[in-house]
């Protein structure tokens, strides 16, 4: 049997392997008894007792969350306690019990009425619906005497599957015992996702209905980095997932056997990932995606909000470099306030630097101001600014003009701003071909392999049918990387890589051989790649790269690597 991969949204840059335990708190209640068989007084007493117990639980979880995650996330339990004791809830439940329903059904119907009301409202209000479901499920669990999976007492190596996980559910998960979780619904900024990152639990959310086809007891890998759930994983997949978690952390710079220093950095998507990245021994951040600041909200973050996030990133790596990629959105991303047009093919449309120099010019300038102020106000670390999806020299020149204007403005305002390191991603074939023309304008190239492979091979990333074409081992992809690396050879421009390819220890020697001196990846693979770098001899690596570049097929490349 071969493995099956279900795509979802990556939440935690960690992978875990384990056994599926379905958690279905809103499983159907049994049919209610006939109204004349319901003892109203006893049912209402049961409701009140359950409410008291739920309140005590919430108190306890509030304390635990404040300790483990933080006050802000703990505040959600205060709101839950208020919903729980709301007079409208008590009235609704009492009314339904009078009408002949048992406490369980009365609770469900009462809450569902409000859930529906809130779910139909916009934005923040819809989140309250989740809070109400959470309180409802808590009451139902107590009323049905816990005939449900107890999340705090799962067997070691469990992977929790659920329709959705509420903050209360997630707070009960013990990272020591739970190998990961996956949910049918949910987004990157859901409560569950934030908890998962804070507690370092591998997680994938928003997998969709396909998750329901996976049964209890099956073995799965939850790859919170790639955003995939792998069912019936092959031995290799399991080994990779387990290895990631066990490689020892190495602090400080690593060198090859013959003394070439290779910077091993982390890709991060939110400030919450900075701490874990440093703990895994990352030398710095090689790709700070800034989209998280902009997605799933009603208006753009202002300069001060961005400033705080960038400053935190720089301060987390006092001896390292933080490469921040400027806003990279296009027609495929949900950013309501940007009025992104629906495009026939968003990956070839107005996105990345194209928007920053066009309709989002104001946002671009605000982002650069926030970045340069954060850099000026920190005496440690260093900032590098990186442009996404560059295809022409003119784009670099135009962005450079904006950057210089921002430096001048800030100096006029008395801020001690300096031009940061400035570079571009190499992710279009045009950038690989034109890299030599880019050299005079930049301090570095960072090869974005996910998009580069997709654009070079004309093979969509998310499409399994063409996955083989989009593989990094395709010689055409290697030649594109080589074109950028050769253009920078002998100049002051350094060449790095961010993208999944950089995090595969099997490819590290090849990448060093191609001349890359910085590799940036999900934090979870940093220890394994650092260990690999220390074993590499650059002369042998160069020879390997030459053979790989001369290969005629992906299979030939694969043979060279094993």
């Amino acid at each position: 049997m071969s493995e099956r991969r279900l795509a979802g949204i990556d939440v935690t840059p960690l992978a875990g392997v384990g056994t599926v335990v379905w958690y279905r708190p809103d499983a159907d209640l049994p049919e209610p008894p006939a109204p004349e068989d319901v003892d109203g007084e006893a049912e209402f007493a049961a409701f009140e007792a359950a409410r008291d117990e739920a309140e005590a639980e919430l108190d306890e979880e509030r304390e635990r969350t404040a300790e483990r995650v933080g006050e802000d996330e703990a505040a959600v339990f205060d709101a839950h306690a208020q919903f729980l004791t709301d007079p409208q809830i008590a009235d609704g439940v009492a009314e339904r019990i009078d009408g002949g329903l048992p406490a369980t059904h009365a609770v469900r119907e009462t809450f569902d009425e409000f859930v529906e009301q809130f779910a139909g409202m916009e934005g923040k209000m819809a989140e309250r619906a989740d809070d109400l479901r959470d309180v409802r499920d808590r009451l139902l669990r107590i009323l049905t005497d816990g005939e449900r999976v107890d999340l705090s007492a799962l067997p070691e190596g469990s992977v929790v599957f659920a329709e959705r996980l509420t903050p209360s559910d997630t707070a009960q998960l013990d990272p020591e015992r739970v190998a990961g979780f996956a949910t049918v619904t949910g987004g990157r900024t859901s409560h569950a996702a934030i908890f998962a990152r804070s507690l370092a639990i591998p997680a994938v959310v928003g997998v969709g209905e396909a998750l329901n086809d996976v049964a209890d007891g099956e073995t799965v890998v939850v790859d919170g980095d790639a955003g995939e759930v792998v069912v019936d994983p092959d031995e290799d997949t399991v080994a990779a997932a387990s290895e990631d978690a066990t490689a020892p952390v190495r602090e400080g710079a690593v060198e090859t056997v013959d003394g070439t220093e290779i910077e091993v950095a982390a890709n991060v998507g939110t400030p919450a990932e900075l701490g874990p990245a440093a703990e895994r021994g990352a030398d710095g951040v090689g790709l700070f995606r800034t989209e998280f600041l902009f997605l799933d909200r009603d208006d753009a973050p202002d300069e001060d909000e961005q400033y705080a996030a960038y400053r935190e990133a720089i301060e987390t790596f006092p001896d390292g470099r933080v490469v921040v990629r400027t806003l990279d959105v296009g027609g495929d991303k949900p950013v309501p306030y940007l009025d992104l047009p629906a495009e026939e093919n968003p990956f070839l449309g107005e996105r990345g630097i194209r928007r920053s120099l066009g309709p989002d010019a104001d946002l671009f300038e605000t982002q650069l101001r926030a970045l340069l102020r954060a850099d000026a106000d920190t005496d440690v670390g260093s900032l590098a600014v990186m442009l996404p999806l560059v295809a022409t020299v003119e784009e670099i020149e135009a962005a450079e003009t904006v950057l210089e204007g921002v430096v001048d403005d800030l100096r006029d305002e008395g801020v001690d701003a300096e031009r940061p390191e400035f570079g571009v991603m190499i992710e279009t074939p045009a950038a690989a071909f034109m890299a030599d023309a880019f050299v005079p304008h930049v301090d570095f190239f960072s090869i974005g392999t996910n998009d580069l492979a997709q654009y070079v091979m004309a093979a969509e990333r998310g499409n399994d049918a063409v996955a083989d074409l989009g593989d990094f081992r395709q010689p055409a992809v290697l030649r594109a990387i080589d074109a950028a690396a050769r253009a920078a050879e002998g100049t002051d421009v350094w060449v790095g890589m961010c993208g999944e390819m950089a995090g595969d220890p099997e490819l590290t020697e090849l990448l060093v051989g191609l001349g890359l001196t910085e590799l940036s990846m999900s934090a979870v693979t940093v220890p394994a790649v650092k260990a690999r770098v220390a074993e590499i001899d650059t002369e042998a690596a160069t020879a390997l790269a030459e053979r790989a570049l001369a290969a005629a097929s992906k299979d030939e490349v694969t043979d060279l690597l094993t």
Partner: protein
Amino acid sequence: MPERVVEVVPEEGLHARPASLFVETANEYDAEVSVGPEGAADDDLVSASSMLAVTGLGVAGGEKLRIVAEGGDAEAALDALEALLSTPEDEL
């Protein structure tokens, strides 16, 4: 009956933490407090002691609220609620 019109300063509006504190504060007083959007008729006001009702108003930051209190400590309740709504969220 004492009443006031107050602008909601927390950017998030009357949701989550600000709403939670609002309900908590209203419940600390003996006065019956009811609340609604500015210009709401008496019949359209909801109980300030119900989290569901208060959150259900869907009040955004910058909007104005009409707050009515009835009972011995009505003025004190209104003072406390006004102070709360006038505080930016990060100072709550």
